[in-house]
């Protein structure tokens, strides 16, 4: 056991600390912030007003130049051109979080499309898409789920036909967040209707201003999480917008899906939320008694803290396994989505319970605590328990791939 990053990282650590000191309190110019729940989800406290102002894209540029984001992405595609270094990533994340300096942009373009293109894209596609995506000039949304293809994603039916050198796409996607703000969608489309279901899918890039695309906001139980449905009516894009070969879409998509699942419940965000809860329990009262002084609340708090501490330690073990190739934590990676989303839902539910009637307040109500983020996050994480492979599907995966248990036997009839 060695929790030090080693002497070779000391300089880097200092550099990052200096950077954070310089930019502490940085804030973004002229940007709407209508979804202040994203702070709650990521566990960070709401950003305070400050002296330094930059635009989002200036900030993105600064971070790329320092190699604090897009580190391992080649210079020719607009990245920093360094090597993947998980410890450096961790140092950056930790110091940024400590100093409350904002990180780089996220989103499905940067987190999912860029790694996908680096692995599967043609040289032209890399040249064309990666740089603007990294710099926040090209926002992407994801077109995977369909109303009838949820847990059974591979049964998706959105159809793509190659007609005169163009893909003509018809069908419907759901759970597409940021569709309204996106320039592009990466989309799974059934192009080989005769093939077995997993090998009939292609991965196609679609400009969102293509005629025939209709975006309808999909209201969800939080009333504010911002998903959409996207409808395609003879949407026509050039043949070269396919990534990899026809029918390889399932493999392309799966190469980065794992990453998404793990990131749904970051243990550090959970720890931050726990701390928010603890502070609130010290401040709020019932009949003049602090919430934290009520033993049954406190006992539940301690139970949740135990789970959060276990999760945090576990994430260190996973980090370690990435740096130390001999360390096998295969099962440990598989459980992250299941355990993390359930824990977060439990934590937010505890916060609601200790707040009592106050905990039921929402939207712009007076007496709202933490912007009503406990209710929002409680529901949002129920959504995450369901989304990204329901936790029932996760248990299948854990038992089959993690524990080597047999798959469900094939069935003779659909009932």
């Amino acid at each position: 056991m060695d929790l030090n990053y080693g002497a070779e990282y000391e300089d880097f650590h200092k550099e990052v600390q200096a950077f954070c000191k310089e930019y502490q309190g940085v804030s973004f110019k002229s940007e709407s912030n209508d979804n202040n729940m994203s702070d709650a989800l990521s566990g960070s406290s709401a950003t305070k007003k400050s002296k330094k102002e930059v635009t989002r894209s200036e900030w993105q540029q600064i971070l790329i130049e320092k190699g604090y984001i897009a580190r391992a992405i080649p210079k020719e595609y607009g990245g920093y051109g360094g090597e993947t270094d998980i410890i450096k990533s961790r140092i950056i994340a930790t110091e940024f979080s400590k100093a409350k300096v904002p990180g780089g942009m996220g989103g499905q373009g940067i987190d999912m499309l860029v790694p996908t293109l680096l692995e599967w894209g043609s040289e032209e596609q890399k040249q064309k898409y990666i740089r603007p995506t990294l710099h926040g000039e090209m926002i992407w949304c994801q077109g995977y789920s369909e109303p009838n293809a949820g847990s059974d994603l591979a049964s998706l039916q959105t159809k793509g036909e190659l007609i005169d050198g163009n893909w003509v796409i018809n069908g419907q996607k759901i759970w597409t967040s940021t569709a309204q703000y996106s320039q592009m969608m990466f989309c799974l489309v059934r192009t080989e209707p005769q093939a077995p279901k997993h090998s009939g899918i292609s991965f196609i890039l679609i400009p969102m201003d293509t005629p025939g695309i209709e975006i309808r906001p999909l209201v969800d139980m939080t009333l504010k999480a911002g998903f959409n449905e996207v409808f395609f009516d003879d949407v026509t894009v050039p043949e070269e917008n396919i990534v990899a070969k026809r029918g390889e879409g399932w493999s392309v998509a799966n190469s980065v899906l794992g990453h998404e699942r793990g990131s749904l419940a970051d243990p550090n965000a959970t720890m931050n939320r726990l701390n928010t809860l603890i502070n609130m329990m010290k401040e709020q009262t019932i009949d003049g008694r602090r919430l934290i002084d009520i033993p049954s609340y406190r006992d539940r708090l301690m139970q949740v803290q135990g789970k959060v501490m276990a999760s945090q330690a576990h994430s260190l073990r996973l980090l370690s396994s990435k740096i130390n190739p001999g360390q096998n934590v295969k099962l440990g990676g598989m459980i992250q989505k299941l355990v993390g989303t359930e824990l977060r839902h439990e934590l937010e539910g505890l916060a609601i319970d200790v707040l009592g009637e106050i905990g039921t307040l929402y939207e712009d109500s007076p007496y709202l605590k933490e912007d009503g983020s406990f209710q929002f996050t409680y529901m949002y994480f129920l959504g995450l328990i369901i989304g990204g492979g329901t936790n029932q599907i996760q248990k299948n995966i854990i038992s089959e791939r993690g524990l080597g248990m047999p798959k469900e036997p094939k069935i003779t009839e659909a009932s």
Partner: protein
Amino acid sequence: MFFGLSEEQEQFQDYVKKFLADNVTVDEIRKIANGEDEALAKEIYSGLINLGINALLVPEEHGGLGAGLLSAVAVAQGLGSGVGPIPFAGAYVMAPIAINLAGSDEQKAKYLPQIVSNETKFGVGLSEYVAAREDAGIDLASGKANGKALFVIDGDEADYFLLSNKGGVLFLVDPKDKGLEITKLTSVDKTRSYLELNLKNVAAEVLPGSENNPEIAKKVLDAGRIIFAADSLGASETMIEKAVSYAKERKQFNRVIGSFQAVKHMCAEMASDLEPCYAMLWQAAHSFDHEPDEARLQACQAKSHISEVAKMVSKKATEVHGGMGFTDLLGLHYWFKRIGLNRQLLGGPELIREEAAEIQGFNQ
């Protein structure tokens, strides 16, 4: 010996359920929750009042139906099962019970018939009597009330508010009193109203029977808790029904998802935990009506236990619905949120369990 709802009670419940099924689909609930159609809201309200739910607990001598709390429970189950977007627990249960138990003869003669004719509606604020948040609470002195009442229920367009001080003295205030300021609170459950009252020297009309008898306020509280438990039970019942029928329809992997053992077991677990709650609830209401010595403990345990079961049901039923359960399309979340609010009203499970222990003399 018969343990259960009587035929009349079941019938009453069926009327409520049928009315809601016929008139209050998810689309209507959504409109009302969003405040988009006040006319519709009023129509639904009148429709339910026409069934007589307001008159249930008013004694016959005052023109009411003279029914017991068990009948109100039958109705509340129905309202919960269809997320009935109307006042009930406060206006038509707690208020008539309080006036009947603690009102002077004049007050009874004045207010109870008005409840039956629905000329007068009562908002009810007993939260601070249970557990004061945000340093709220009301002082009562020389006929004047000062302070703050939070989480007042059924208060939209109320003609009076029924409030309590910390000692359990119940009194009425008039919303038109100049010293009374009303602020709307927004909860996750927008099917019911939720208010804050600020009182400055507001004239208070005390219900005299409550002045030297703290048992009255407790009794009113018991009734409210049993009714919220009934509402959550009804809502849970519907969530399970919806989950089971969705699971029988929805196909994934070439099978209806209801044929997957994981989904079947989730449904079986919900049903198994909910099933004994019916009897528990009815027994609590029956004791309220006939066995006062056992009523308080049963009311506490019914509220806290059913709240826990309902929370579990609200989660699992949503999970069975998959992504659809998370959307507003099916509107399942209205039930989820109804259960969420009921859970906290008049005390969350931990607080009520502590009361249950106290009633039994367990915590010295």
